[in-house]
């Protein structure tokens, strides 16, 4: 069964992409079926995992080192679930958003190819296969950004494209060094054979640099706000919720299987420091933002900083597991919450024709469902109970306190307060009394009901992750990777 469930996650969106390419008219129906199948596949894998533990699949029947292998453990399945759970409302939303517009004709195959790349990436355990999935992921993400057709989006897309390609080439150069040294691409084999050497350090440095660029860790985030802020709303949601996590996932796998235990503490401290920088800098930029979608995009820069805080915390012995749990839960919860916020912001923008924060109040009051979704997403981003963000930050905070990393505790608390700053800013601007009835604002464009409810659905999942965290934590703990 493992084979069928995992194949479903990759084959369903890929087949949908081809069909949507041949017959653009079929559009959303096929995409929705494909995303549902990804979700079904991920749930199927979760049940297999629950019964019989981590799984391996040798594609083509060759096995390592010759063939490509899929590795399926709790981390893999959690990420696949994230892709399916975020993807479903986004697909529903995009149906209302693009309607019959010409841009939709291209959106559907691109989105399906992106989903294929993401699922393959999460399943894979092979350095070169990851390169191909990274390219498929990156190119489809850039193409999706261009769909708005505006100059700002095209400029942002170009910067995103060049940066992403440089990141991929750095990664591939690292792979070349490793292959030159060991002649192996499978991570499970490499874990056994690698030994600290100059070549390994340089290779890891190159790969990590490429992946950090792609996952936009401060100060390599420069391409992100414009790209995420100028893309069509469903695309922004996909990019912030899912795409940046693809590269980070690979980094995490390398961290556990390839980075030798002799890694100097300074490296993880630097990574943590960059994370702290991201949290502070990104939050401050979000507070200063004048456009709603830019605010949400800068919030992504800040939230990605929490991912980097994991590295110094994971070094701390018995608290490492807590830190990893917190990290993965964070990725999941952030995916749902941030996706919901971008979808809600897209509704406001669609209705008002702009997303300038200062004149958002009338629109916000006309779209209570979307505003409610934004607020719930915000609760999770701030890390308030009861939300997925709370569980995630609580675990990270626990690990930091337990291991005596008081700096990280301070950073996380500061980050929480700053995020409250930008989210309450949006809320207060939205619910401010319009006072003595200003100019009878321009007519609002009607927003599809499905788009409003899609954003609320995603936000509710972020909340649900906090209310009922145990099943998720159980799943995650199956075959929890450990450094070695």
């Amino acid at each position: 069964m493992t084979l069928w469930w995992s194949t479903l996650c990759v084959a369903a969106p890929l087949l949908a992409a081809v069909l949507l390419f041949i017959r653009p008219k079929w559009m959303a129906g096929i995409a929705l079926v494909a995303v549902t199948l990804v979700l079904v596949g991920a749930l199927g894998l979760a049940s297999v995992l629950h019964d019989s533990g981590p799984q391996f699949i040798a594609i083509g029947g060759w096995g390592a080192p010759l063939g490509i292998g899929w590795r399926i453990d709790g981390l893999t399945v959690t990420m696949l679930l994230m892709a399916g759970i975020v993807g479903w409302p986004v697909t529903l939303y995009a149906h209302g958003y693009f309607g019959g517009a010409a841009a939709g004709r291209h959106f559907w195959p691109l989105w399906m190819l992106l989903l294929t790349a993401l699922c393959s990436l999460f399943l894979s355990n092979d350095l070169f296969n990851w390169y191909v999935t990274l390219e498929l992921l990156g190119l489809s993400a850039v193409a999706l950004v261009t769909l708005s057709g505006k100059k700002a989006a095209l400029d942002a897309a170009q910067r995103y494209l060049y940066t992403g390609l440089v990141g991929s080439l750095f990664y591939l150069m690292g792979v070349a060094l490793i292959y030159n040294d060991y002649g192996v691409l499978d991570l499970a084999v490499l874990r056994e054979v690698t030994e600290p050497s100059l070549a390994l350090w340089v290779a890891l440095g190159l790969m990590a640099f490429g992946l950090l660029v792609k996952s936009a860790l401060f100060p390599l985030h420069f391409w992100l706000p414009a790209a995420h802020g100028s893309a069509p709303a469903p695309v922004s949601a996909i990019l912030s919720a899912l795409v940046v996590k693809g590269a980070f996932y690979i980094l995490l796998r390398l961290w556990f299987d390839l980075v030798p235990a002799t890694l100097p503490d300074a490296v993880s401290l630097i990574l943590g420091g960059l994370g702290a920088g991201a949290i502070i800098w990104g939050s401050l930029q979000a507070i200063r933002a004048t456009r709603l979608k830019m605010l949400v995009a800068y919030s992504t820069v800040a939230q990605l900083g929490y991912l980097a805080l994991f590295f110094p915390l994971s070094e701390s012995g018995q608290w490492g597991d807590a830190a990893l749990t917190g990290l993965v839960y964070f990725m999941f919860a952030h995916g749902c919450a941030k996706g919901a916020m971008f979808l809600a912001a897209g509704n406001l923008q669609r209705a008002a024709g702009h997303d300038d924060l200062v004149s958002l109040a009338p629109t916000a009051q006309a779209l209570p469902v979307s505003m409610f979704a934004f607020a719930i997403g915000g609760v999770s981003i701030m890390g308030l109970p009861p939300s997925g963000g709370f569980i995630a930050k609580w675990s990270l905070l626990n690990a930091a306190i337990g291991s005596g990393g008081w700096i990280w505790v301070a950073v996380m608390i500061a980050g929480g307060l700053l995020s409250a700053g930008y989210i309450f800013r949006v809320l207060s601007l939205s619910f401010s009394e319009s006072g003595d009835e200003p100019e009878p604002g321009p007519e609002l464009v009607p927003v599809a009901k499905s788009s409003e409810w899609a954003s609320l659905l995603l936000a509710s999942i972020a909340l649900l992750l906090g209310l009922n965290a145990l099943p998720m934590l159980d799943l995650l703990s199956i075959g929890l990777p450990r450094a070695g």
Partner: protein
Amino acid sequence: MTVTDFYALVGVALFVMGLSALILRKRDLQRILGLNIMGTGVFMVLVTSALGQGQPADPVPHAMVLTGIVVAVSATAFALALSLARERHK
């Protein structure tokens, strides 16, 4: 230093040349050439890793480079079309 090492060093040099062009050049087309030359550098390092000590050449890096070349031409086609689209908006 063997001939293989020599080609590997040429590959590294191409990688950094392409990278610096990407940073320093202003025109899209030059930067796209930079990306391509950077990629060729990586491919050269990969192909040299196929040559061990006196054994038959390892086909896996060759296949990786073939894949890489196709990905590179795809990315180039897209990058060129994107800069054409931006040009129209000027």
